[in-house]
């Protein structure tokens, strides 16, 4: 039973590492800062959460040791990483970094022009 659980946790850790890798490839391959930020914040958050959760469950099953720091880390990454992504994107938009030329719509543009003309 324990061995089966350990295999599952190992699979979850490998899955988390794979998601992180996909996020990193996305950062390299995607064309502009907004799509890159999308890949980085989503991929890194989910990958890290999977790895941390598997580590927490592993120590729980293996040693019977509930590591509160890992739980706090999971909550903290889950809460703050998307906000960091949001702030980076917003800082880029407000300092005038252009969107990828093939991107379809820019919903913020009208609002920004309105705010500037006032």
């Amino acid at each position, binding site marked *: 039973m324990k061995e089966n659980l350990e295999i599952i946790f190992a699979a979850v850790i490998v899955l988390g590492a794979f998601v992180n890798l996909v996020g990193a490839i996305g950062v390299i391959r995607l064309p502009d800062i907004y799509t890159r930020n999308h890949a980085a914040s989503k991929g890194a958050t989910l990958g890290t959460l999977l790895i941390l959760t598997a580590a927490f469950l592993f120590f729980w099953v293996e040693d019977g040791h509930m590591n509160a*720091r890992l739980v*706090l880390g999971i*909550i*903290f990454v889950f*809460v*703050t990483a998307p*906000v960091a992504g*949001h*702030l980076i994107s917003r800082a880029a938009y*407000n300092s005038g970094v252009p969107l990828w030329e093939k991107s379809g719509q820019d919903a913020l543009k009208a609002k920004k022009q309105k*705010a*500037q003309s006032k």
Partner: protein
Amino acid sequence: MKTNDLILQTITKIAIFIILAFSLHLFFAGHYTPGGGFIGGLMTAAALVLLLLAFDAKTVKKIFPFDFIKVAALGLLIAVLTGMGAFLFDVPFLTHTFGYFDIPILGHTGLATAVLFDIGVYLVVIGVTMTIIQTIGEDE
């Protein structure tokens, strides 16, 4: 143009409690596990810096109305006094001791005088870090 920082400020209000709780945990865990006064103080200072980033300096001063230089001085005083306290028992300077006590809520607990020294380190680290950051941030 006035920026709308609603998301950052809301998340700061939540995250600040996690950071402060974790810094206190690190501070008290320092005797038996990694942690201690230095890293606990740095993390508390980091929580205050997050407040400074999300809100402005005036708001932070209203929430924490301390003169951080005095906090550092108080920490040094505590550290020196715990060292001097050893003289009362006729042992060399900075000799520390510990004992086990039965405290009502916490139960059988080991208490060490090194924690008092650590409180001094904690306050000095908070005071120095916040003084540096506030003096850099405030020159207009």
